[in-house]
């Protein structure tokens, strides 16, 4: 008999988590295929229907869906309370799963009528369900939890990002904004990448990193400082944007976010230095490499801001976008998928058997060879694409994106291997 105080309340059923993982892995494959089919588009201007389709498949179908899935599993750990609502989790999945293909279809064929409008609206509703679930879970849990506050703030920035995006979609068919969509894209893009992805990655990563490395390092003050720098940077960016104070002041948000990133790199270093577990597995290494990639993306962003006055800087913008979605965000997901998914599936299969029979290690559910091959294909493909964007070479972009398709196939293969794992009888 087990007296389960926290246990029954905590258990997020795998049924609400796994659909997000499956959807995200298929979206990653779809995005790389779209990239391969539209590779020549990356030699031109970034405001292109094909590039918009690839970007939204990566940002929503890949990055956001897997974060939604992992969040439903990890929020109870971050907030130290049970998930607020499983139903909202299912609803969030259903709305996003229906909305994303409509939105991507709308962008790919530049049909911003009902497909993009309905798709975008479904996505906003999905995010709203997610925000309510995060807020409800936090309300049930510990109040002074820095990681939970990061998660909620990130979710609110995502809601704002999606609302701005949906406004832009409607503005295409019935213009009502004072300027064209291109003027508002930096707003939509920066609050999405910094407010949603960066804030969430730092908030959740700062909790998981010491947990996985078994590190004694703890620095909540530093995490609060990073939190205020990122949000302060974003708010100053919004003020500069809406009051048209000129590009010469954009160093303020860039400096704030740069300082936050350097501090987070220092936090990661602290965790590594004070870890009890000496061996760092490949999944954690890839996730840690992504911290370095954030800094590269920031250098590109600084160059864009410095150079945009003198030249259109399209290639830098494309490199920044490519580096953000296929580099940084993909790196974290590739690492963290195989750090979390085998455990979720292992728990589903062996929860009732652990202790009464010999059980495999959760890591045995995946293939390490497939993982290594996937990393090689992803790194090589990404580097070739970066060269292709820099040199405006369609053939390099085709070769690079073909390797990224291979990486996505290997990723899907390994995910399916874990999901379909059958215990030896």
């Amino acid at each position: 008999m087990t007296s389960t105080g926290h246990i029954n309340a905590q258990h997020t059923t795998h049924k609400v988590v796994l659909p997000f993982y499956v959807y995200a892995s298929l979206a990653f494959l779809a995005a790389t295929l779209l990239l391969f089919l539209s590779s020549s588009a990356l030699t031109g201007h970034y405001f292109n229907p094909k590039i918009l389709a690839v970007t939204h498949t990566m940002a929503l179908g890949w990055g956001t869906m897997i974060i939604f899935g992992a969040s439903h599993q990890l929020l109870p750990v971050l907030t130290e309370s049970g998930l607020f609502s499983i139903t909202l989790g299912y609803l969030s999945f259903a709305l996003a799963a229906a909305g994303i293909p409509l939105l991507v279809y709308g962008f790919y064929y530049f049909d911003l009528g009902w497909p993009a409008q309905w798709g975008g609206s479904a996505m906003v509703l999905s995010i709203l369900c997610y925000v309510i679930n995060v807020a409800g879970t936090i309300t049930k849990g510990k109040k002074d939890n820095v990681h939970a506050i990061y998660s909620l703030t990130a979710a609110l920035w995502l809601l704002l990002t999606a609302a701005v995006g949906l406004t832009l979609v409607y503005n295409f068919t019935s213009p009502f904004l004072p300027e064209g969509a291109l003027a508002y894209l930096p707003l939509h893009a920066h609050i999405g990448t910094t407010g949603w992805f960066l804030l969430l990655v730092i908030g959740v990563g700062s909790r998981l990193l010491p947990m996985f490395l078994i590190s004694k390092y703890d620095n909540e003050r530093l995490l609060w400082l990073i939190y205020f720098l990122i949000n302060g940077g974003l708010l100053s960016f919004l003020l500069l944007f809406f009051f048209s104070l000129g590009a010469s002041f954009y160093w303020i948000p860039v400096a704030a976010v740069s300082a936050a990133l350097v501090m987070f790199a220092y936090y990661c270093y602290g965790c590594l230095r004070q870890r009890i577990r000496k061996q760092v597995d490949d999944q954690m290494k890839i996730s840690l490499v992504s911290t370095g990639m954030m800094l590269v993306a920031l250098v590109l962003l600084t160059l864009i801001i410095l150079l945009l006055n003198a030249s259109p800087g399209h290639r830098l913008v494309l490199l920044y976008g490519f580096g953000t979605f296929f580099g940084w965000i993909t790196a974290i997901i590739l690492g963290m998928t195989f750090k979390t998914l085998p455990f979720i599936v292992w728990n589903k299969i062996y929860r009732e058997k652990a202790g009464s029979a010999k059980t495999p290690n959760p890591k045995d559910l995946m293939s390490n060879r497939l993982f290594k091959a996937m990393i090689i294909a992803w790194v090589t493909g990404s580097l070739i694409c970066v060269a292709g964007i820099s040199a405006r070479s369609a053939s390099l972009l085709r070769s690079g994106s073909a390797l990224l398709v291979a990486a996505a196939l290997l990723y899907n293969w390994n995910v399916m291997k874990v999901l379909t794992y059958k215990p030896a009888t």
Partner: protein
Amino acid sequence: MSVVTNNDLRCTIALAALENVIDPEIGLNVVDLGLIYEIDFDEGGTGIVVTMTLSTPFCPMGESITGAVERVLQDTFTGAVVLVKLTFEPPWSYERISEAGKKFLSA
């Protein structure tokens, strides 16, 4: 790592058995990890109360770990009724890892 008990001999047997319960993420057993706080045996020998913690509250693997503790003790002390009580007071900390556990993790 120290475990409070009211029966040293039975506790030694229980801890030896619990060394087979492995935290799936860390790869270390729950005894060396310092998750077991107290093991009480009733006088008739049919009841065992284990007070333990998890490395983090609301750990996703919590149910499988506490379930494994219960099953291992039921197998070891046949016919015993095992009650696993989960507590987070005091919370688990790295200081609770045994020397053998630290050696395992630093290898």
